[in-house]
């Protein structure tokens, strides 16, 4: 920058000196000055450019902070802390005040038709918070990964999942051990925060209770075939303590399941998965609250075998396979459950007909649901679902029936159904609020119009979801 004034000064001095000179000299001197000026200006411009470059360069260096991930700070043990995420869910629900809520024709999980063992809130009227889910997960070492999901509600913490998964077996083999959501069906492995509706399909409530999923303490082995189409086979053995089985204090296998999944893409916009699962478990003295033949309170006790088939299908579509702006999802599942064994009823109360006489019990039940959810903008989704169950005709031997009586809703021949509509809005992928209307005809003689407003928020490291 200094050079410009110097050039000017030189110019001035020279211009003074030339006054005495003649015209020819003047021309020569003028051209020399011109050259001098040119060369100075060029040098100045190049210097200015250089300066600008260094300035830009240093600015770049400032923003180019070395990435943290590449240079672990030694001694910072907290870096190994598991990924933590917390799900906050709450709702407002308006529905009929029904004393003993349940699904007519189906034995309720947990013995009676309230909300024991269920998700807090789903069967509460008015405002409530659902249980709060805390999820911790991390790689244990190069060979194992672990995850725990704790569900917290007033006065209780329930271990929903606590398992380890193999990482290093290879050959398509995956091993999981601990308490995990069984791989049967499609929705079973999803937690309530990933559901598209505020409640589980009737089918899942009937099969596994209000949790809407079957959790198993045991071992799961899966194998993914090395084929271009996804082909996966799995088998599970476990304790079988949960409904429809019971905890039986045995050394053997309490429940087992097998499943197969197949799936692929059709073009770039469509993808699908279909599955077939079979679950087998046993119950001993599975309790169900009844009003006996004399209308006295008692417990029906079932012992025997429970076998369930499930078929599931999911189809997803997104323009160009880019689900961010618009996407569509169809999902449907079907089940068929057979239970056979014996039943009897017991009661401590005076005047009870129940005396504990056991007789044959046989049921064959089925049901399905189908749902479609359309995301029509990045924030808004709308969905419709239809549920239908068939209780079949439950056969109870004459000796037991004489005591249990004919009047219990859970043994009635009925076809429950429900239709649901929902709209939800997500501010981001971590928050969602949902409005749902359902016309619930799952209880004989009652049409329950239910309105639910629900929010689901996830905090922290929110892991990836399965398909």
């Amino acid at each position, binding site marked *: 920058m200094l050079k410009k004034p110097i050039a000017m000064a030189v110019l001035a001095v020279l211009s003074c000196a030339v006054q005495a000179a003649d015209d020819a000299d003047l021309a020569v001197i003028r051209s020399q000055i011109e050259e001098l000026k040119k060369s100075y200006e060029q040098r100045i411009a190049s210097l200015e450019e250089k300066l600008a470059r260094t300035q*830009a360069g240093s600015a*770049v260096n400032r*923003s*180019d*902070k*070395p*990435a*943290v*991930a*590449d240079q672990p700070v030694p001694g910072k043990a907290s870096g190994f802390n598991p990924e933590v995420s917390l799900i906050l869910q709450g709702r407002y629900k308006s529905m009929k005040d029904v004393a003993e809520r349940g699904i007519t024709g189906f034995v309720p999980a947990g013995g009676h038709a309230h909300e024991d063992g269920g998700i807090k809130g789903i069967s509460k009227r008015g405002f409530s918070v659902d249980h709060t889910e805390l999820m911790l997960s991390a790689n244990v070492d*190069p060979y194992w*990964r672990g995850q725990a999901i704790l569900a917290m509600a007033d006065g209780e913490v329930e271990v929903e999942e606590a398992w380890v*998964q193999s*990482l*290093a*077996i*290879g*050959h*398509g*083999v*995956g091993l999981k051990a601990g308490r995990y959501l069984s791989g049967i069906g499609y929705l079973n492995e999803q937690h309530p925060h990933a559901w598209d509706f505020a409640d589980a399909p009737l089918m899942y409530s009937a099969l596994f209770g209000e949790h809407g999923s079957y959790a198993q303490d045991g071992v799961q082995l*899966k*194998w*993914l*075939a*090395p*084929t*271009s*189409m*996804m*082909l*996966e086979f799995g088998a599970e053995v476990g304790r079988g303590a949960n409904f429809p089985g019971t905890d039986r204090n045995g050394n053997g296998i309490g429940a087992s399941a097998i499943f197969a*999944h*197949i*799936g*692929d*893409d059709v073009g*770039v916009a469509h*993808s*699908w*998965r279909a599955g077939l699962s079979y679950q087998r478990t046993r119950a001993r003295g599975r309790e169900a609250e009844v009003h006996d033949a004399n209308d006295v309170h008692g417990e029906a006790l079932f012992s025997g075998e429970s076998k369930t088939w499930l078929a599931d299908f999911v189809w*997803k579509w997104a323009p*160009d*396979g*880019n*689900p*961010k*702006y618009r996407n569509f999802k169809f999902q449907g599942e079907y089940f068929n459950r057979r239970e056979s064994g014996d039943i009897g009823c017991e009661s401590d109360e005076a005047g009870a007909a129940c005396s504990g006489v056991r007789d044959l019990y046989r049921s064959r039940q089925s049901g399905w649901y189908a749902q479609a959810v359309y995301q029509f903008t*990045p*924030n808004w989704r709308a969905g419709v679902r239809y549920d239908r169950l068939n209780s079949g005709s439950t056969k109870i031997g004459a000796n037991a029936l004489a005591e249990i009586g004919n009047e219990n809703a859970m043994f009635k021949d009925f076809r429950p159904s429900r239709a649901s509509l929902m709209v939800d809005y997500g*501010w*981001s*992928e*971590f928050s969602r609020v949902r409005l749902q209307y359902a016309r619930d005809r799952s209880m004989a003689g009652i049409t329950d119009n239910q309105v639910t407003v629900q929010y689901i928020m996830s*905090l922290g490291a929110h*892991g*990836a*979801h*399965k*398909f």
Partner: protein
Amino acid sequence: MRKLISFAVLGMVCLRAWAAVEVFATVPEWGALTREIGGDKVNVYIATTAFQDPHRIDARPSLLARARRAQLVVANGAELETGWLPVVLRESGNALIQPGHDGYFEAAAQVVRLDVPSVLDRAQGDVHAAGNPHVHLDPRNVLKVGQALAQRLARVDPDNAGIYQANLAAFSGRWQAAIGRWETAAAPLRGVAVVVHHQSFAYLTHWLGMQEVGALEPKPGIEPSSGQLTALLQSQQTRPARLVLRTAYQQDGPSNWFAAKAGIPALMLPFTVGGSAQAKDLFGLFDDSIDRLLKGLR
């Protein structure tokens, strides 16, 4: 019978030795780079297209099946694929491609990232702890990733290490020449102020000396809102942008709206290989991007 089995086993072993390395690339740019360096020694499957937002992909069954058979996963990293890749890797039952093994490669880990946040808070939107993940739009980064990738391929497939090095050398020569060409051509872009849909072009604008003066998304990963667009329009008075940039997978509505109001062109840049007809490979990607930017200025 025993002979037959031993023949079959021998055959499989031979096939294994002859077969190309199965590569699972998460995004088109790294798939294209793997093809440049691997040549016919690799068989590359690319999990996404230029029309898909790599942040938001489902862990589709087809991806599981592909990951199951992969010997090398070439991921972008820096949390770009955090919504689907971890599930795909874990459920694949493939020990080779788990993070920490030679079969798992992260491109963004090979370069210096921009915009590494000093505070991690989701109030800032979907920020990435490791910095802006879209590193490939600075061609100097592509070269660094290429060098690391050639080394990794050599570890996964030592028999062809020489070929990978030779391919890298050939690619580097062509690439460096191209960088010179692009930098000369892009000289008029220096200092040009732009508005972007999402922080997808941070490395491109940084490399070319362009200035990002605003984003249509109020926070990363949050869709453009009318409030944000209006505020941006007002700042046009003081810091006027000359172009609005978006990728092939982003909606054109917000950038078209803003461009019309501000009276400046909205440009769709291919962003990655396959994003435009001209962006057939990495060279085409940069040729076309700079071409479109220059045309936008006129």
